[in-house]
């Protein structure tokens, strides 16, 4: 992987990646997508980023496959819609490749870990991050089952006590849900800690400069404006 000096702190790059992906995915105007593509080209040119052969191939095949899948899944056979989906996916992929060239993913995660430690103490936050991933992929059905069980128990107890219930009863399931989530994330964090991950001795990869603050503020402004206009 060939890359030039990172333009900003890894945490800034992580924010650019995260917000940039959202901006590209919610884009629904051709001119805006054109502007995004121009910005990506400018960054690639400015930092002399040369993609590897695999990355370049992926950038062509990935969006093609995405468009094909979108076309197959769309019952009315909307070709332009499928192509649009493919382009946006390609844009997201392009942004990811550029960011990864500019800042190593490990650096970004370590910087995030180090920053969050100011509020969360010495424990690893990878557990919490894993929880977020679990939430997206697999956790929601499990939480639904838990909520159902808690609600059944609440109903059972009310019935046994001969109590009609209050409005609060419908919200009682929230406490176990939140507490179980926290406990589960802590267990994940503990198991990662037990396997030797020591985030408290992570080396400082980059300092925070005024330029980092300016870039961060800029990215957030662009993100909020895009969000406000498009959604």
């Amino acid at each position, binding site marked *: 992987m060939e890359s030039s000096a990172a333009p900003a702190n890894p945490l800034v790059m992580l924010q650019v990646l995260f917000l940039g992906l959202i901006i590209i995915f919610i884009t629904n105007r051709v001119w805006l997508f054109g502007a995004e593509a121009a910005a990506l080209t400018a960054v690639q040119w400015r930092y002399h980023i040369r993609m590897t052969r695999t990355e370049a191939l992926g950038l062509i095949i990935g969006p093609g496959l995405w468009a094909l899948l979108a076309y197959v899944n769309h019952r009315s056979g909307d070709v332009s819609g499928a192509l649009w989906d493919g382009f946006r996916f390609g844009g997201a992929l392009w942004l990811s490749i550029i960011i990864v060239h500019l800042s190593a993913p490990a650096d970004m995660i370590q910087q995030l870990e180090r920053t969050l430690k100011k509020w969360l103490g010495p424990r690893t936050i990878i557990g919490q991050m894993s929880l977020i991933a679990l939430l997206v992929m697999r956790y929601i059905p499990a939480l639904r089952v838990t909520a159902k069980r808690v609600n059944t128990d609440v109903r059972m107890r009310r019935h*046994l*006590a001969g109590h009609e219930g209050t409005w609060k009863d419908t919200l009682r399931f929230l406490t176990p849900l939140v507490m179980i989530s926290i406990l589960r994330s802590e267990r994940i964090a503990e198991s990662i800690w037990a396997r030797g991950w020591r985030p408290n001795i992570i080396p400082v990869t980059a300092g925070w400069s005024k330029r980092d603050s300016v870039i961060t503020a800029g990215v957030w402004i662009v993100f909020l404006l895009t969000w406000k206009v498009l959604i």
Partner: protein
Amino acid sequence: MAIVIENVVLPYSGLRIPSWRAPDRGLYGVVGPNGSGKSQFFSLLYGGLKVPTGTVSVTARVGCVMQHPEHQLTESSVAEELLWAFGGTKHTDPRWRRRVDQTVARWQLEPIWNQSPWTLSTGQKRRVVLAVYDLLDPEVLLMDEPTEGLDRFWRTNLKNWLISEKSARLILIISHDWTWLLSFIETGFWCERVLDSTAADLGRLWYCHNQPASSPLEELWRELLSRNAPVSFRGWIDSERALQQVVKLWNQVQHRQIP
């Protein structure tokens, strides 16, 4: 019969319940291998599971101590956990107050009375849930792995409490802790693909179904029973009792009373 189940097939586990009628009262085990549908059977009884086929009729007041106490803790203190279901309306009644005090004393909740249930150990959480259902006084009490997380002292206390409640209500207990179950429960329902409609001797169920042995004493007992030795099905759960039975057996062999 307060609970009658006919022609039900449970989802996932595929457990079939051709016909099951709940006994009026007493202590019964619900035993079987992992994943056989025991907990689902309980869900059916307390109304947490709907089935597309068959009929389920429950007219009794059912309470359940679930497998995971975390699913039953909704409040910010043990006190609220114990009392919220009563809505505070009966708090002035001295008889009810006395009952609360007895329950708190029985499960030794005073030291943790104002503590958040989420800061407690698993055993303590379990005791809180047990206390909740002790106070709620259901006609049918279901207990799914109630000894999980409890130390020896509390396992014995729980056993004694269950024995004292034997004539007051129907108590069904799911557990894989055979030594604990056999020490005070006579009969149980075997649950594997099909739920037995009638309760069988729990010692016999242990001998017929539960393989392999988990301790040398249990292994010895299986061996003796397989050779038709005149020992009881429950002899192995208490080493003192086992010794007495083995000595008796040895004397009989010595005096050639048995081959």
